[in-house]
């Protein structure tokens, strides 16, 4: 008998309605997307001892910044390390483990907050929670691609849109919970983390138990796979994760993702400060917060819309659009500051951030096209190390170049100009990396068992 969490148990009947799978994937991603809203806890966490204001012994913002950094590094590492396991064990078991890690991570973190032990917060939210992030992120990918071979981009875009949307839910929910739990002796963070941990655990478990896998050979009714053209990027074969990382295609795509993310992640963290400094006197702090909110919406919307568009125009052309349009827009940003047009500045960044989100959501379908569907979660997991790297490059580029500019006498409203040109330059490099992605050589393809007339299987490519 197959175990309760086993892959064999969740093979669906041919008549299963595949539209039950996207909400399960969204249940996972909406929860782990909370990571983008972690900053709402920053200020309360700096006054855990002083409560109304920071006092001696309270944590600093720099110390707290490591919680997010550890979580994102663990996301990349765990996605890379456990990708093959996720693929082998199926979405129910991996969704179950992701839910446990994410929920327990919050609870251990809450213990750290209430006892004022920062290492416990690093261990809980950063390390354990980070593993939940990585496993949870890749869990629905191959399941969705298997259920939606006709709409690979749209289906993964929908799930990864949930990662962007998770922060939109978590931010106001955390604010409300902290208000409800705060008292003269508590900031309410620890209690909020306990509630979030339990809610996320239950919600993600619901998603994990809803996953089903299509039976081998299943196809959507009335759909026939399009004929494969000679030299086309889309393959009907599979490349194992071990082979995939030996191909130049993998590393070109690694740089495609890394450069696209680097260009977006740096400005995402500095958006509020940037708009206020570039348009001094014109943009208030509350309007800047509105700008950050607007960017979150475009980040989320871009994940669904660009990935869906990639089903129509192809993955490679979609990334080409990201890199060409992104370069033009980054070049335009300093000009918007020069002419004092807040509207143009906002429009530029909304499109840029939509393409940042689109880069995340289009990549699983791109990988499935190039390396096949069979190991896509495992290959995707390895590719996500590019995100971890970009999480370091992006903010460092934006922050340090700005600091260096200001230290050298450049007025604050012009301090981001060089950064924008550097981002544009990175996107030009990304364009050429994307251009270099070609079909995988025959020698990297997995050998397939083909039965001989006498019934003995042979291995052929």
């Amino acid at each position, binding site marked *: 008998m*197959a175990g309760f969490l086993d892959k064999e148990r969740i*093979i*669906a009947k041919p008549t299963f309605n595949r539209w*039950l799978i996207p909400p399960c994937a969204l249940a996972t991603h909406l929860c782990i997307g909370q990571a983008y809203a972690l900053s709402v806890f920053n200020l309360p966490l700096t006054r855990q001892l002083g409560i109304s204001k920071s006092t001696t012994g309270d944590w600093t913002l720099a110390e707290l910044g490591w919680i997010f950094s550890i979580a994102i590094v663990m996301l990349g590492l765990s996605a890379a390390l456990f990708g093959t396991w996720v693929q082998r064990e199926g979405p129910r078991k991996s969704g179950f483990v992701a839910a446990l890690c994410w929920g327990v991570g919050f609870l251990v973190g809450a213990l750290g907050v209430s006892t004022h032990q920062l290492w416990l917060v690093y261990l809980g939210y950063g390390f354990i929670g980070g593993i939940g992030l990585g496993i949870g992120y890749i869990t629905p990918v191959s399941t969705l691609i298997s259920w939606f071979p006709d709409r690979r981009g749209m289906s993964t875009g929908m799930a990864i849109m949930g990662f962007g949307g998770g922060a939109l839910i978590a*931010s106001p929910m955390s604010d409300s919970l902290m208000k409800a739990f705060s008292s003269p002796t508590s900031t309410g963070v620890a209690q909020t983390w306990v509630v979030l941990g339990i809610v996320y655990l239950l919600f993600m478990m619901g998603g994990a138990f809803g996953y*089903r896998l299509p039976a081998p050979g299943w196809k959507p009714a009335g759909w026939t796979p399009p004929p494969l053209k000679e030299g086309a990027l889309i393959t009907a074969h599979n490349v194992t994760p071990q082979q995939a990382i030996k191909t130049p295609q993998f590393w070109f795509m690694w740089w495609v993702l890394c450069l696209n993310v680097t260009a977006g992640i740096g400005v995402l963290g500095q958006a509020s400060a940037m708009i206020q400094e570039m348009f001094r006197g014109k943009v208030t702090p509350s*309007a800047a917060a509105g700008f950050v*909110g*607007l960017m979150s919406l475009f980040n989320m919307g871009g994940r669904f819309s660009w990935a869906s568009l990639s089903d129509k125009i192809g993955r490679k052309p979609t990334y080409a659009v990201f890199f060409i349009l992104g370069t033009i827009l980054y070049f335009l940003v300093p000009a918007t500051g020069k002419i004092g047009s807040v509207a143009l500045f906002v429009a530029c960044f909304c499109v840029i951030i939509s393409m940042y989100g689109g880069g995340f959501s289009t990549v699983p379908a791109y990988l499935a096209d190039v390396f096949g569907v069979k190991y896509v979660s495992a290959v995707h997991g390895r590719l996500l190390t590019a995100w971890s790297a970009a999480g370091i490059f992006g903010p460092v580029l934006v922050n340090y170049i700005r600091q260096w500019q200001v230290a050298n006498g450049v007025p604050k409203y012009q301090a981001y100009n060089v950064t924008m040109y550097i981002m544009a330059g990175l996107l030009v490099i990304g364009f050429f990396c994307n251009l270099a992605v070609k079909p995988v050589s025959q020698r990297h393809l997995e050998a397939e068992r083909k039965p001989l007339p006498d019934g003995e299987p042979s291995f052929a490519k």
Partner: protein
Amino acid sequence: MTDAAATREKDWSHNPGVIAFAWLAVGIPLLWGVLNTIIKAVALFR
């Protein structure tokens, strides 16, 4: 019947109530989050 087939779970996917519940369970929180963000974003245009 194989072991795997015997342990396959019941197919709820044809129950419109189950499909609606699943989409509402993720859709309502998401819409609430989007609405909150839009309200915040309006400050930019004031």
